[in-house]
């Protein structure tokens, strides 16, 4: 295992079999990759591509058919590796008959944490995920977003070195998704390593340092996000303080033609819908009572 590698797999293969040992499905085929310390690593792929299987193999929830996986220097089947891991499952599979405090207390006890430390850490995390006022409610009464928040809190109860997040923004509204992404970046800035798999490509693009793309259980692409997404056939220039006049358009076109290129389009850039949404919501908070009126009601 390389010095700065937190996770390393070698020809990791998972074949699901039936009761009689007959092969049912090859979920993962000879997957080899590594995750380095302090990075946010994204696992991408369509449904059934093997993302969740990979995560479950890393966590020891499934046993590999072939190959090996090492997490924090230990075999993925070694329970002791879990001492430094935090895991947020996709559906936040927690005990719905417990409240938030009890949930964190329970998982804290599984780490054999001292009572005082456990209580202090639980309260910090409950505040951090914004559930202070709901900490006495049982999880059955929580919305999906709240369950995701308490799920994240339980994943961080042991102050882990490696955080594994399965669809962390799934079921969250844009505000919640942004909060989650900010938190993931904050965790990375604290020196933790994060592995996340997500369907929301914009999330991955926003925050991941490196990614692996899986399809049909096989690794299709692997590397730094900016390198993978770089389109060397196109050139982009951004400028401010200009009005996009017809003369400017013509001049730019002439310049591109002079250097042998072709202008595809010239125009104002658009922001992302997420940024626009967040801007509107923030404005509504700062100016209460303001609302949008459709054109026909303005008069």
């Amino acid at each position, binding site marked *: 295992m390389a010095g700065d590698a937190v996770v390393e797999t070698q020809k990791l293969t998972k074949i*699901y079999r039936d009761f009689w*040992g007959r092969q049912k499905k090859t979920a993962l085929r000879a997957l080899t990759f590594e995750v380095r310390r302090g990075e946010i690593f994204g696992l991408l792929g369509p449904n059934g591509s093997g993302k969740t299987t990979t995560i*479950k193999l890393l*966590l*020891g*929830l*499934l*046993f*590999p*058919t*072939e190959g*090996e996986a090492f997490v924090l220097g230990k*075999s993925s*089947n*070694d*329970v*002791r590796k*879990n*001492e430094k*891991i935090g*895991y947020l*499952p996709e*559906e936040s*599979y*927690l*005990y719905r*008959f*417990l409240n938030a405090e*009890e949930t964190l207390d*329970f*998982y804290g*006890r*599984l*780490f*054999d944490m001292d009572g005082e430390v456990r209580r202090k850490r639980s309260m910090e995390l409950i505040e951090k995920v914004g559930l202070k006022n709901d900490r006495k409610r049982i999880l059955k009464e929580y919305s999906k977003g709240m369950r995701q928040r308490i799920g994240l809190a*339980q994943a961080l109860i*042991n102050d882990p070195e490696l955080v594994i997040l399965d669809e962390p923004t799934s079921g969250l509204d844009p505000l919640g998704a942004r909060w989650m992404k900010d938190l993931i970046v904050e965790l990375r800035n604290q020196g933790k390593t994060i592995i996340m798999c997500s369907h929301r490509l914009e999330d991955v693009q926003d925050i991941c340092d490196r990614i692996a793309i899986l399809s049909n259980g096989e690794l299709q692409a692997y590397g730094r996000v900016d390198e993978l997404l770089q389109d060397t056939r196109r050139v982009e220039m951004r400028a401010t303080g200009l009005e996009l006049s017809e003369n400017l358009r013509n001049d730019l076109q002439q310049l591109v033609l002079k250097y042998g290129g072709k202008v595809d389009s010239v125009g104002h850039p658009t922001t992302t819908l997420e940024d626009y949404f967040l801007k509107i919501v923030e404005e509504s908070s700062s100016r209460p009572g303001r609302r949008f009126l459709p054109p026909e009601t303005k008069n």
Partner: protein
Amino acid sequence: MTPLFALLFFEKDPLNWSNLTGWSLIYYIQTVGGFATFAVFLWLLIGYPRSRREDIQAIPALQRFLFFVGAFLSIPMLLWQAAVLVEIALQAVTAGPQAQEGGGTVAASIPGLGFIIRTAFPFRPIWFHTVLTIGGLGGILAVLSPIISNLFHYRLGRLRAVARLAFKEGIRQRVLYAFSGLVFVALFAGWFVNTKPSDEIRTYVYIAYFSIGSLLLVTGALLAGMSLPGDMRRQSLQTVVTKPVERFEILLGRIAGFVQLMTLVLLVMSGLSLLYVMRDINPEASRESLKARVPIYGNLRFLNLPSNSGGTEARGENVGREWDYRGYLPGSRATRANPPQAVFEFQEIPTSLLQRDSIRAEFTFDIYRTTKGNENQGVAVRFAGFGPNYTVGAEEAWRKERKEMRDAFIAKGQELDAKAELNIDNELAKKHGYYEMPSLPVFDYQTASVILPAGLIAKDVTSASVGKSGKPVFPIVVKVSCLEPSQYIGMARYDFYLRADDDASRLDRLWFGLNYLKGAIGLWMQLVLLVTVAVVLSTYFSGVVAFLVTLKLWVMGWFREFVAQIAFGANVGGGPLESMLRLVRRDAPATKLEDTPVNQAAFRFDEFYRGAMRIFLDLFPDMERFDFTIYVQEGFDISWGLIGVTFVLLIGYLTPWIVLGFYLLRWKEVASAN
């Protein structure tokens, strides 16, 4: 006064600590070791070739070492198992009509644990048992190797966390409240049951234990069986398994949590039902059963029976009763030199008896009459007590001196009341080590008592020892003889006992209440058994299947003796196919079937079936051992010794199950359940 009926009888001897040593322990090791060895063999045959090289290499060195040592030692056990399987196959092939006479297999039982031995167990040579026991230990060591090598990684804190979770889960499941409510409904069953006034306590105790037991046991098994599969289905177990918690801790924690929960419910239910049982009790019922008699049992042997020409026998005469629980003592004239006698030799007495003036002995005998005798009068029986100070021939001196002392007392003009008589008897008992009750009328199955002077017992002899003459010396011996030549007195070891408790105590209600709660410990042990088995089975089966298999084991456990009879061909009517043939042809169960090809096929199938049953017989728990209802019903104390031994038996039964659960959960791909 109405006659007293308070009788405790034991088809099987009650357990004591000596049952846990010697052959019973060896048998346990060989049985559990046998299963363990077979499991190791199966793994080497099937599991090892399918294991990944990386996984084998990752096995810790200590575990590897323990496994190899254990597997090597278990080779003789494996060879023996192969021989037994060949024997079963041969028996099935060669089975003929003799099988219906139970001639195929020799059955023997070890007193106490109720284990039925597959083949004449204790009668094989010592070297054989030594090799087989070492083999069994080897198998156990190999199977336990991953647990032992990981022992220092288990944490009580994590186990308690899982237990608390299971406890909370159980509390917050409404099924528990529903079942608990049903118990209260069942407690009022007494309103609809017509009982004799003297049987009130017996009936109420039965209703209370039965309703609490059956409902709580079902609830416990249901909650425990459904829990883990539910966790796997909801995938909450996945989150738990990603923490540094050993799967063994999850298994033990689950068991502990549900046991805690059900213990709490049982405590509350027992307390409430005790109030129900003890309310407004009929005085007759109080006199019979509202007690906690502490009996001291002696060993019984018979002397001078006609059938054994003056020798001694463990069993009395057989008068032809179908139930052969009791032996019978023939009557003889009081003047006969060596009359037939039943001798109760008490191996040990508590020192508390030394503080008393008298010792109360109670007995319940069966009368077998060969002539009508005197109508409405009991059969005359003589009781004689012997202490360590007794010397041969002291009887005559005792009788003479007793008469003189009584006469002298009366001559002084004093009233010879019971206290004065007891003083005389104590003085003489100390001097001669002898006391006799010349004639006492005994009635059929009525509980009566004899007051023995405490002077019979000596401070320095509270347990049996070997005297200077080389003969055994007992703290106290009671000889019983029947004085009517045409009558027989039937008795078993447990029909005569000394009372270690103080009969004059006014704390009967308190002792009964405590005894009632002790009786609930039997229910608790059944709960522990069912919860553990249900949790273990739920690591592999679905919740419903785990629940049903657990209930089946529980029910089969109550019929274990019958299952054993079938397994050893000791029952009337043969195995399943043979009895089906008899049913179809309307043949009587006891008739011998002809040697036809169809019958031969049935015999062979049945013999094979019996062989398989003999192998798996020990999977069924001996549930009768965990039932203390009869003690409470009849007003007899449940000793802590009995509770302790039964608990050890429970642990002995459950340990292999827990180890099985360890492997099932360890090999489980938690995430593949979806």
